[in-house]
């Protein structure tokens, strides 16, 4: 093989691998990303059924109902609208009424959000950033800047 051919092989294979990687990334970005929505977004927009979303807001006071089989129902609110959520599993340690929460899942045909993951936070005064901003949009944000960390 000549020097030129060797170089071409190298560049060719590099190009091929990068093209594959790029293809995979674009395909996955198109398909696998999850949009963040507030309860107001969900009530106003009609998302296609089965579309995965992240729903964030506050756990509505007095809305948490636990039943057997580790099933939990609660409502997530941004103080303007609320969405009913159902979840089977162990709630995070810091899940409490009136606190910020982010859930991920799909909206069922009955309009109830079926969550497969519920995230609270690692710190007692941490508010998920998306939730803080969604609440600000609704004009219900009272916390100081320090709470957004």
């Amino acid at each position, binding site marked *: *093989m000549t*020097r030129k051919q*060797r170089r071409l*092989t*190298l560049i060719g*294979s*590099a190009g091929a*691998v*990068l093209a*594959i*990687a790029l293809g*995979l*990334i674009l*395909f*996955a*970005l198109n*398909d*696998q*990303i*999850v*949009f*963040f929505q507030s309860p107001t977004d969900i009530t106003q927009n009609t998302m296609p059924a089965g579309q995965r979303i*992240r729903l964030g807001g506050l756990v509505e006071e007095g809305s948490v109902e*636990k039943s*057997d*089989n*580790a099933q939990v129902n609660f409502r997530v609110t941004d103080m303007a609208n609320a969405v009913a959520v159902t979840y*089977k*599993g*162990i*709630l995070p*340690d*810091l899940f409490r009424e009136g606190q910020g929460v982010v859930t*991920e899942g799909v909206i069922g045909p009955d309009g109830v959000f079926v969550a497969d993951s519920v995230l609270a*936070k*690692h*710190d*007692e005064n*941490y508010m*998920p*950033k*998306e939730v803080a*901003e969604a609440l600000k949009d609704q004009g219900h944000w009272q916390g100081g800047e*320090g709470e957004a*960390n």
Partner: protein
Amino acid sequence: MIVELGHYALVLAFALTLVQCVLPLWGALSGDDRLMAVAPPVSVMLFVLVLISFVALTVAYLNSDFSVLNVLQNSHSAKPLIYKFTGVWGNHEGSMLLWVLILVFFGALVGFFGGNLPKDLKAATLSVQAWVSAGFILFLLATSNPFERVVNPPLEGADLNPILQDIGLAIHPPLLYVGYVGFSITFSFAVAALLLGRTDAAWARWVRPWTLLAWCFLTLGIAMGSYWAYYELGWGGWWFWDPVENASFMPWIAGTALLHSAIVMEKREALKIWTVLLAIFTFSLSLLGTFLVRSGVLTSVHAFATDPARGVFILVLLCIFIGGSLSLYAWRAPMLKQGGLFAPISREGGLVLNNLFLTAACAAVFVGTLYPLALDAITGEKISVGAPFFNLTFGPLMVPLLMAIPFGPVLSWKRGDLHAASQRLYAAFGLALLFALVTFWLWGMEKVLAPMGVGLAVWVMAGAVSEIVTRVKFFEIGPKRGFARLVGLPGSAWGTVVAHFGVGVTVLGIVTASAFQEERIETMRPGDSVELSGYEVTFDGAAPRRGPNYTEEVGHFTIRKAGAYVADLDPSKRVYTARQMPTTEAGIHTTGFSQLYLSLGESRGDGAVDVRVYYKPLITLIWIGCVIMSLGAVFSMADRRLRVGAPKPAARRKAVQTAAAE
């Protein structure tokens, strides 16, 4: 007083870095020996000063000196002694101080052990290291001073985040930082080479051991972090593709590529320009990781209380170091001489393939981690890129790489013979096929990917072993002489085998723990049992208990298998008194390499409690594999060739030069 001393030592260290930034480099560029001689003693002095500063902060923590703001916010007098000590780096300021300590420690190592380096390269390297140190010490002093005092100190501190009150905090951050920051030395070497306009044999020989050292610690640090999250968070997962995890994973991938390309550069003097670029990229990714984790753009347990000024400061540092080194690269890299031609099918070719896939995989992780941040900053749209994205991009890129791993070491340098190489791998291939078929036979079409994964893992492990077995012709010459030859193999050959074997072990753990995991979520009352993977888990009841700085509700469970007693497990739900913060302590029972994992939900009042039970087959292999990988790095570092002061035989150096000149 001691606290002020620590603060003063840090200021003094900053002043010294400024001297170190200029004088030795000036000396190296102008050929002035006296200026170059400044570098080694100053590098050691810098380390001593930052160490004094670190010890001062540690003393404040051990004495629970709440007049120091940092101690007040992150410690508590009732906290066990070990957490008072580890709490030093369980907060933003202290962890940055540890970061800087390790940074100057590496500088001191080069200053102390760099006796056989060319003088100008050593001086320039230490200067570059000092630039980085100066940036981060200034960051500490200006935005995150750990020595700030409070005027009227309260009697009690706010305590450490309970999640961090674990032995993991003693191990994970120091290991991770030695890894992360260790890449600063290869970065400094690379920038110094660019400044001096040459990469000679000494440069090539020095880069690899430093890369190996950093990589070894980073591997352990990531593995430890993963295991810590696994048992402490109570979610039963070992990797979440969380941006913070990715922040440490990206330098690891780039570092893995770097330590492979450094082999080519050392042995064949090829890929020089690429290796220099990789060295810059690897540390840039470490810096990026520090930015992501410390600036507060991400929300996680690693992002302590944030202050916008800090994020901006690190971002500016990031731009200066990454932008500066890449511009320097663009300007000076064409001056570096390329050497060593090779055919596409050769050891070099295999290592290039490794680099291609690793860089592509690193790019995929990079996009997935930064795309949501960029989108939020530009359009304000909030999205999340989670595990599905990474599984779909990172996974497929790893499969061809794993398939290719066993071929690399059996190919010869310069021009390899794929057919002859494959013959040495028949046995490994047969074994892999056997395992894949057995897995398929046991589980059938239910889990289609599992047999492929198991086969791939066995292929990597068996391929690694068969490389040395065929290399010493173990079966041809009989076991006695075979063993003698195996022991006589150079450390780097063993390093390759052990590290590649470790990769296979980790892959096996990942495949089995993901494919064959069983999970049950139940609301249990005392006396209830659940069955899972042949185990019977009985809930006996819950009782309160008091710890030193927490109270907990402990659930008592008995595990039986076929009626016979196996173990007791006591998972609990703790509430830490000072912060009123609850945490989950999982109960884990290890049998062989598999684990039974129990975590409690909130109790429901009437004695019932939500319980999550997992059976995770072979899961510990994931972390054991990482330990084996870093052991491989240790073997490689022990190689005589890399030992400091072991010069290359003149005859071989000549041979390499003539080969390069072809």
